[in-house]
């Protein structure tokens, strides 16, 4: 039986820290480093950049991350798998090759494409979020199917040092190198489910080692400023041990692993990825020494016949304005400020929202009946079809300086363009993935 494979998580979202990935790369004794960097909206924004310039559309941090990580991958002998290709994995592969040329490294890169299904999505396709069809949201700017391990395996089998994808289900980024290493059949649903469970635990990186977990005095986590990212050692049956590099911040614990196991799972008895439908109800998590937790017991129930597709559309502009009040009666002066803006803007915007930061802004209402905050900020937000109209929101809030309640300070105004996302399904047979290979060898006479 082949030894366990060690897979590390090098990023949990597009803008994640780079230094914990470098620590893992240098001291983690990794076989694979996987970086999950592609949010739902990120791919739509990338598609817009590609439309402007066909050589763009990959992750803006690709070069910064790969410049540091690829030389470490070559030195320590691990492979990199990432969805940083975003809307243009082939161009991303070219960037990695250009870096290899500059750094004098021999590097092979495989780009996985085929997730872009914009041409195949009909406007009458029903959306998954409720009633209605894709066409109700205007002209889509992007439509990307969530690819699974089937698309990634041929790329890994080229022997590439770096595999770059666009839209892939997050756990599949981790499952693919595990399934490849142990030579699992994709129809071995229990093993595929256990590998998916490991991928799901790792995909948010620091959220497994104490990020998004700490609560001082209740759930303390040491040294969060230098949070270590996690890895998993996965054996041939898919049983795994979670860990992190000694001396890094954070903590691997059963309580944290439970939170992450259930994170964003809408169906714990039937979690769907392109590869498998997983039942998490039999999962066991146990402490296994310092900074080690074992995970076992996920089971699989077949694979979905359809793939999920994220469709991006232009959703207009949002205008925002904020101003703050402090001291006696701050809450009532803030309320008055909000009422003034509402009266002046009412009827000009389809949707408007007034928040009292310090009281109601996060949950829509306060759960504290006797609240008396020392300071409160009013925030007004409204949706508009043009940026000019959206600007009016911040202008009205700013005008409260001289026309509103006493003591208003620190006004700010913002306008942002919105990309909306709706989802639909596509038959998996209609999605065809491809692999393109790029190679650079400084010692070869020709490439």
């Amino acid at each position, binding site marked *: 039986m082949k030894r366990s494979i060690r897979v590390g998580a090098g990023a949990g979202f597009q803008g994640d820290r780079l230094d914990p990935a470098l620590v893992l790369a240098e001291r983690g004794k990794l076989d694979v480093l996987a970086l999950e960097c592609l949010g739902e909206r990120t791919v739509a924004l990338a598609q817009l950049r590609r439309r402007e310039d066909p050589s763009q559309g990959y992750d803006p941090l690709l070069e910064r991350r790969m410049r540091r990580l690829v030389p470490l991958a070559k030195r320590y002998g691990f492979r990199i798998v990432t969805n940083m290709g975003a809307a243009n994995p082939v161009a991303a592969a070219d960037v990695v090759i250009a870096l290899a040329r500059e750094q004098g490294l021999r590097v092979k890169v495989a780009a996985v494409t085929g997730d872009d299904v914009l041409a195949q999505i009909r406007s009458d396709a029903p959306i998954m979020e409720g009633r209605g069809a894709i066409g109700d949201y205007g002209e889509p700017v992007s439509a990307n199917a969530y690819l699974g391990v089937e698309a990634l395996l041929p790329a890994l089998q080229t022997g590439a040092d770096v595999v770059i994808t666009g839209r892939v289900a997050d756990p599949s980024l981790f499952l693919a190198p595990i399934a490849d290493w142990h030579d699992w059949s994709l129809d071995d649903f229990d093993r595929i489910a256990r590998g998916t469970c490991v991928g799901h635990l790792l995909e948010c990186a620091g959220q497994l080692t104490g990020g998004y977990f700490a609560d001082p005095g209740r759930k303390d986590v040491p040294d969060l400023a230098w949070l270590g990212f996690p890895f998993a050692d996965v054996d041939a049956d898919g049983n795994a041990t979670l860990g992190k590099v000694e001396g890094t911040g954070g903590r691997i614990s059963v309580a944290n692993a*439970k939170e992450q196991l259930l994170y964003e799972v809408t169906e714990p008895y039937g979690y769907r990825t392109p590869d498998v439908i997983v039942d998490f109800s039999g999962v066991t998590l146990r402490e296994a020494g310092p900074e080690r937790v074992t995970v076992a017991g996920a089971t699989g129930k077949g694979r979905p016949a359809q793939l999920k597709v994220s469709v991006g559309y232009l959703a207009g502009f949002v205008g925002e304005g904020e101003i703050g009040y402090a001291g006696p009666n701050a809450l009532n002066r803030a309320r008055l400020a909000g009422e003034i803006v509402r009266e002046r803007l009412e009827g000009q915007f389809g949707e408007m929202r007034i928040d009292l930061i310090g009281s109601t802004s996060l949950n829509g*209402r306060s759960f504290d009946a006797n609240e008396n905050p020392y300071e409160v900020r009013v925030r007004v937000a409204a949706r508009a079809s043009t940026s000019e109209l959206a600007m009016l929101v911040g202008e009205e809030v700013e005008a409260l300086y001289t026309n509103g309640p006493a003591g208003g300070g620190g006004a700010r105004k913002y306008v942002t363009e919105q990309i909306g996302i709706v989802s639909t399904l596509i038959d998996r047979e209609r999605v065809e993935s491809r692999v393109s290979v790029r190679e650079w060898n400084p010692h070869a006479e020709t490439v």
Partner: protein
Amino acid sequence: MPKLYDLAHCRAGDKGDTSILSVIAYREEDYPLLVERLTREAVAKHLRGIVQGEIERYELPGLHALQFVCSHALGGGVTTSLALDSHGKSLSYALLALEL
């Protein structure tokens, strides 16, 4: 009356306009009390005005956890919500304020 905060921890996740709240007992022996008291109805009442749709509850006895899947809870969904906390990340602690 114990606060949920004293017995359990919670993490919030999101999918579109759905908020997913994972409630996990610190101690195994408190899990039956959560199953009994932390009903769909109790959560709906506590989060009234926030969760506009149905709430589904899944029991995970092996993890001493309850999973609440709350539809129409994020102002139309992360990508187009006007809310500051468009992901509803802070709803975990709104739920933990519940008195059992």
